[in-house]
Structures are given as C-alpha cells and as structure tokens.
C-alpha cells in the first residue's frame, strides 16, 4: 500500500508541475497555488496533531511569522526574496524551539489552549508594534508573475511532503512520534527522549509553515494581523486535516483538496451567501468528528482493507454449526 501511494504522489506532483504549461488562465493558476499552500499547512499541522497527539491551535502564528519576517526584510531592509524567506523559516524554527521547550511539557487540552493563547498574543503584538504597521498591515513590492509563485509553492510543498513521507512513514522517526502519541511514559521506558523528539516534531511542523507564509506574503503583496495571524489560518488547516484523516499524510492532502475546492466553488458562485460557508464548514467538522472519526482517508482505507480470510480447514463457526442441537424436554 505505501509504495502505491508514494507512486501516486510522484505522479500527482509531476501532473501539477506540468499544469502551467497547458493552463494559461491566471485565475486557475491562482486557485491551484492556494490549494497547494493549504496542502502544505494541513500536512505540517498533522505532524504534531495526528502523529504526535499534540493539538497545536497556534499553527497560524508560524505562518504569520514567516510572512511578517519576509515582508519586513524585503520592505524595510531591501533583502532579496529567497534570503528573506529563508530568514523567515529560520525564525519560525527558532520560535518553535523557544516556545516549544516550555509549552510541549503541557498535555492534552492544556497544550491546545496554551498554543492558542500564544498565537493570539503574537497577533496582538503585531497589532501594537510600529514595524509591522499595526492594524493597517504591510505592503510588499508587487511581483506579477503567477507561474513563479505557483512553482515556488509547489516545490516547497512537494519537498515537505516527500521529506515528511521519508521521516514519518519509512524512517523510525514516525514510529517514535506514534509511540509518544500512544503512551508517553511507555515511550520513555523504551529509552526514547520524548522532550527532544517532540521539539523536533514541533520544528518540523513550524519551519515549513514559515516558508509558506513568506511565499504567501510576497504573492499576495499585502498582509495584516487579521488575515495573516488570525484564527482562520489555523482553523482551516485543522478542519482540512481532521476531515481528511489525522495521523496519515494522505488524509490532510485529500482534506485540503476537497475543502479548498468546495471553498473556491462557494466563493466563485455563491458569494452572496458567504456566511453560509462558515455554517457548512462548522457542520462538516462536527459531522466528521461524530460519524467519520477516522477522516475521509481513514474511512476509505478501512473500507478497502482486505479482511483476513480463514482457511476452510479451520473455521470455528462451521464446526459450531454442526454441533448436535439439544432437544427440548
């Protein structure tokens, strides 16, 4: 199964890379760029939530950190784009390390609330500071080249996907994370160092989000605390990952594609009913938690999985049938 999925992922990436050669409509390219961005955010969120069992409700803060770092370095210091994005990703990684050290000691719901509070605090700081432009946000020099941004997003997302695939699905690192998710004390008893592994997972999840944020800032050319550091970034990533299936890499990708396609369709054709989107989104999360606890991909897997077949020589049910019935008195 994993081999087959990996093959599909390679084919998908190749197809996506070929799209701009055929499609010249900038609208569709723009939609695809954003879809790829959400795939990256959903899978990086899933590293910590699905594999390690720590719900990070502040994922958007790393995205915003990358975006703001890129914007400040390009706008105020005049750095070139690749350097600024690299600086943003390094800063996101450092922030994950510094914030993760104390925060990752918290368990379950406490961790969720703490990361959420931290992300909202970062948003408040961006609203107050001078250098970030406060509530007015920041503008970047426009660079109108849709293909460039499409390929930038796609290459980063593909690189992140295959790196995570290697680390989580084939290397022992994924097993270590799952061990922590299932039983942290047990993992420690096996000789693992949960504190270190959790920090590694946190950085692995935060750093790509910073890169994606940096590309997003330069692509959209305008960022402000409400749109870039607000709850909505985290919320959508969470919804996509949960709807697609936590604890897998394919699940969040699937969830991101389905939900983003839905969202785009909604905004394009039903824009008069924009708030309806919130209702449907909320109902979808609640529905999938209650009725599809494994997510879309998990349900597909459990439907198609081959049930173990018992050989005819040993079939306890058959022998039971042949047992003589006890006649009624």
């Amino acid at each position, binding site marked *: 199964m994993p081999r087959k999925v990996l093959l599909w992922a390679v084919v998908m990436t190749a197809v996506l890379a070929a799209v701009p050669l055929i499609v010249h409509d900038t609208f569709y390219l723009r939609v695809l760029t954003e879809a790829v961005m959400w795939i990256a955010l959903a899978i990086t969120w899933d590293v910590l*939530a699905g594999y390690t*069992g720590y*719900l990070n409700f502040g994922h958007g803060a790393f995205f915003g950190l990358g975006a703001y770092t890129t914007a400040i370095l390009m706008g105020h210091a005049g750095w070139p784009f690749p350097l600024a994005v690299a600086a943003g990703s390094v800063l996101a990684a450092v922030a994950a390390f510094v914030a993760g050290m*104390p*925060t990752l*000691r*918290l368990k*379950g*719901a*406490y961790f*969720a*609330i*703490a990361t*959420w*509070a*931290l992300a*909202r*605090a970062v948003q*408040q*700081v961006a*609203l*107050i500071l001078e250098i970030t432009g406060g509530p007015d946000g920041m503008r970047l020099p426009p660079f109108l080249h849709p293909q460039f941004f499409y390929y930038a997003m796609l290459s980063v997302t593909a690189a992140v996907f295959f790196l995570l695939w290697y680390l989580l699905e084939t290397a022992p690192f994924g097993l270590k994370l799952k061990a922590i*998710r*299932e039983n942290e004390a047990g993992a420690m008893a096996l000789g693992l160092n949960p504190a270190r592994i959790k920090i590694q997972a946190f950085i692995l999840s935060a750093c790509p989000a910073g890169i994606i944020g940096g590309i997003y800032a330069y692509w959209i050319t305008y960022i402000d605390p409400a749109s870039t550091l607000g*709850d909505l970034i985290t*919320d959508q990533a*969470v*919804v996509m990952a*949960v709807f697609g299936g936590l604890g897998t890499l394919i699940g969040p990708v699937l969830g991101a594609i389905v939900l983003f396609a839905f969202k785009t369709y909604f905004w394009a054709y039903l824009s008069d*009913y924009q*708030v*309806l*989107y*919130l*209702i*449907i*989104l*909320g*109902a*979808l*999360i*609640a*529905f999938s*938690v*209650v009725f599809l*606890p*494994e997510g879309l991909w998990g349900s597909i897997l459990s439907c198609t999985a081959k049930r173990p077949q018992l050989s005819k020589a040993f079939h306890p049910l058959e022998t039971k049938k042949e047992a003589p019935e006890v006649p009624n008195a």
Partner: protein
Amino acid sequence: MLLLPQAIVDGLLIGGIYITIAIGFSLAYGVMHIIDFAVGEWIMLGAFLGYYLNQWFGWEPFLFLPVIFLAFYIVGFSLQPLIHRVLSGRRGNPVLMGLVFTFGLALMFRGLALTGFGFFSRSISSALAEGSWFFQSGNFFVTIPVIRFAGLSYALAVTLGLHYLLKKTDFGLAVQALAQHKESAGLMGINAKRVSSHVYGLYVAISAMTGTIFGCIFSISAQMGPDLTVFAFFVVVLAGMGYLAGVPWAAFLLGFVQSFFLIYLSPAYTLLAVFAILYTILLISPTGLFRKGV
C-alpha cells in the same frame, strides 16, 4: 491615584460577569472533561434570544431570564448525547476530538448568527441602564451604574444557587461523584449519561442567561463569541480547570486586569496582557492559581 477606587469598583463589577461566563464551563469540564470552544457562542446566542424577546414584548430583559434558561437547558440537554458519543469514541485522544467537535459547533453557530442577525452590533434596552449611584468623599469619588450592579448581583445569585445545588442536593452529590470517578459513580447507581446531560444543559443555560445580562451592559454582535471564549478560558485556567471555588477569584482578577489597563494604560494592551498571563500561568502551574484543577 484619584481614579484608584473607581478602578477597583469597576474591576469588581466587570469581574462579576466573568464569573458566570466561566462557571458553567468549569462545571462541564469537571464532570465531562470537555473543553468547549463554543462557550462564547452560547453566550452570544443567549444574548440574541434576550434581545429579540425584549424587542417583541418590550419587558425588562431580566424578566426573560427563566425563559432563556429553560430554552437553552433543553438545547444543551439534547445536544449532550452527541458529545458523549464523541468523548467515548474508540479513537484515541477523546478529549481532543471533543475540542475539535465543539470548535465545529462554534463555527456553525457563528455562521448561523451572522446569517440571521447580520454584522452590526446592538444593545438590549433595560430600564436599569439609565441610573447610576455616585459616591464622593474628599477627593475620591466612585460611580456605580445600576445595571452593572444588577449584573454583579445576578452573578452572585447564580454562583450561590449553583453552590446550593452541588453541595446540598442529591443531584449535586451525583455530579460530584461523577467528577471524582466516573466508573465508581456508575457502580453506585448513577446514570452517567443522564447526569452529564443535565450538567451540560445547566452549563449552556447559565452561559445563555449571562449573554442577556452582558447585552444589557455592553453591546452584542454576532462576532463577539471568540472574545468571550478567550475570557472564559482565562478564568477557568487561572481558577484551575474544573475547580469551581476558584472561579470567582480568577474572574475578579480578570476584571481588575481589564479595568486597570483601561484606566492606567492603553486598552490596546488588554488582550495582550490577558494572553500573556494565560500562557504564563499555564507554564508555571497548569492546574491553576490554587493548584486544584484536574
């Protein structure tokens, strides 16, 4: 310095409302271990029910509190089986699945409210909103708006009522037993599902009533939910999750933080301070100021 008495009184008056925002939430967490991201939305929905009842009948909003209580009690009571299903699922990490579930509910309620009530904000008109008491001695003076005093009285009444219910009745005993140990409580003949449904109904009803009071004092809008969720989380975490006796102190602390920032610093820093304190407390003592949380 002249404003100090006013800052303290304001803190007390605002803090009173925060007790009732958080106390039901803390009760629900203590019994069912659910973190309800929708707490702010319940308050918002209650506020709008109060607003429309007030518009239609034109009576004093405080008179509608029993109606709101009953309506939302039924809603919460009938919603609980779904939450029970999520929390007792076979998938690992049921607490986190509960968190995600209520998060979905919150989005849905916010969307429904925005569709039904629109984006603009309004306030519930109450006859009490006009009066205020003024005290002066020497250079110090204090103003107490009647409506805020009524809000504080409501909060204290709810707190005392809940205290009576939990400490003096059989139902309260069952709730305490359930919070202590679910399986043992079941062995003693307590219907965990039924009691949890009542607790959830109680929590939703208290939050909704608070919404109406909130709407009389401040203004209400369909987007106000997340901010109230922030305050509820702050109070409950500081008090210790599930530790009801800590809630009033934490709520007054939040009231003081807010009134002092408003008077002495800039209101722009209030939310930052709230998040910073919340985060620091979680790191230093995740079980709250009194170290009594679960």
